[in-house]
């Protein structure tokens, strides 16, 4: 046991952490954009778009993330689409997978607004745009934020799957360091765990706090 093993390999840890953070942020933003679009389709009055969005959601939600990576790396080339192995493939897969959970969180947030709110807004003569921007969305956004944070936490953890597909992020760094320092495997991997926990635990607490606040506001 040698605590120095973590300090000695700090540059590797930080590089891994940076890659994990980068994957989380880029894929998170992508998932937010696509997820919002899918959620908008899901609640739109156009039946065909609703069916499309529901199918997209149902398909991706029931497939493991590993299967999606597998598809991108091993199946897509058969379609003539050869993605550069590594970072961008990982971003694409994580974005697609996470977008579904973003869409579901947004949809349930809109559903959580009582029908009476919209009826009351219409009854006092607000237009569709007014009732959307000043009555429905402010309430929906508040109940969407906590589950959305949980989605991003899950994404941060899911970036580890990229370790299996040629991206050197935290988990892959941990595996490599563990193989290089067979005497200190526990310590090396505990170091990796620490890097994940400094992100996931505070974010989880924040989500809990906000959730409680929203619950009291109602």
């Amino acid at each position, binding site marked *: 046991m040698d605590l120095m093993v973590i300090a000695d390999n700090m540059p590797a840890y930080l590089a891994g952490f940076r890659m994990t953070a980068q994957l989380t942020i880029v894929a998170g933003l992508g998932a937010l954009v696509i997820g919002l679009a899918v959620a908008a389709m899901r609640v739109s009055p156009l039946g065909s778009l609703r069916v499309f969005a529901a199918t997209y959601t149902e398909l991706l939600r029931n497939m493991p993330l590993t299967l999606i990576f597998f598809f991108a790396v091993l199946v897509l080339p058969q379609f003539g689409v050869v993605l550069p192995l590594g970072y961008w493939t990982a971003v694409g897969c994580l974005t697609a997978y996470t977008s579904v959970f973003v869409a579901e969180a947004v949809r349930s947030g809109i*559903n959580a607004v009582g029908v009476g709110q919209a009826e009351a807004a219409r009854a006092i003569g607000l237009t569709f745009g007014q009732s959307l921007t000043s009555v429905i969305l402010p309430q929906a956004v508040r109940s969407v934020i906590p589950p959305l944070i949980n989605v991003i936490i899950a994404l941060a953890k899911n970036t580890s799957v990229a370790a299996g597909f040629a991206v050197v992020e935290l988990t892959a760094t941990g595996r490599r360091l563990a193989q290089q320092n067979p005497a200190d495997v526990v310590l090396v991997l505990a170091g990796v765990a620490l890097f994940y926990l400094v992100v996931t635990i505070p974010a*989880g607490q924040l989500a809990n706090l906000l959730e409680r606040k929203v619950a009291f506001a109602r």
Partner: protein
Amino acid sequence: MSRATSVLYDAPGPLARRRERIGSVVGGLLVLALVGVGAWYAAGRGVFEADRWAVLWDPPKNQSALDVWRSLLVVGLGATLRAAAVAAPLALLLGLVLAVLRTTRLAPVRVAASVVIELFRGLPVLLMMFFALLAFGWSAFAAVIFGLTVYNMAVIAEIVRAGLAALPKGQSEAAAAIGLSRGQTLRLVLLPQALRTMAPSLVAQLVVLLKDSSLGFIVGYSELLKAIQNNAQYFGNASVVALFTVGAGIYLVVNISLSRLALRLQGRTRRTAAPAVDVTAPGPAPRGATTGH
């Protein structure tokens, strides 16, 4: 239609309905056109040629279709289900124990249980599998079981906590009033009710567990994905589309069936059990319902 529609829009009149129909057709055609272009492109690359799919009914290299399907369903899916069948009961049991420990009056025990839950909930399942693999030197199967168990145990502990918290306070007060001990109260009064309302969340978590078992592919456990890859390597890369389609289909069928079961259970609990929480009240979904992915 759905409640979402009625929150956002007034009930449409005849004119709006006609517009919606037109928009729907236009949108539908747009989606179909996109899918069509993709399919046309794929057909141009020979993806749909029969000999690429023949691996599913008349495989080359002197193999019978039975061999291929056996390797996918019995060996591949079998290994996936075996991992889930071992990890799920373990996670449920340990999750229950953790949740109960979290409600004891002994502060150190309570704190320890909370720490364990927070720790394992905040770590990637894959990292925990690597931990078992590299630090304990366990086999790939044991590593998969370890990763699946400790993560889902923590999530289930949270689900149970939420289920207990949702019960009306009068239940435990009444139990105390008739002289039940804390253990009896939990075992005879609280848990039976809470487990019922938690059943949908627990089944939904089973889907997450089943999906995560595919991480075995990365740590070297030969599950369904590995079986697909092995077959694709043996029969040539051209067959991978057909094999992948089967694999994805298996996951979809299994997981969608489980999700349906969860929905059915949810409907049942709403009808029969005394509603512990007012499910019609607006508000965020109960915690635990959205924890997994």
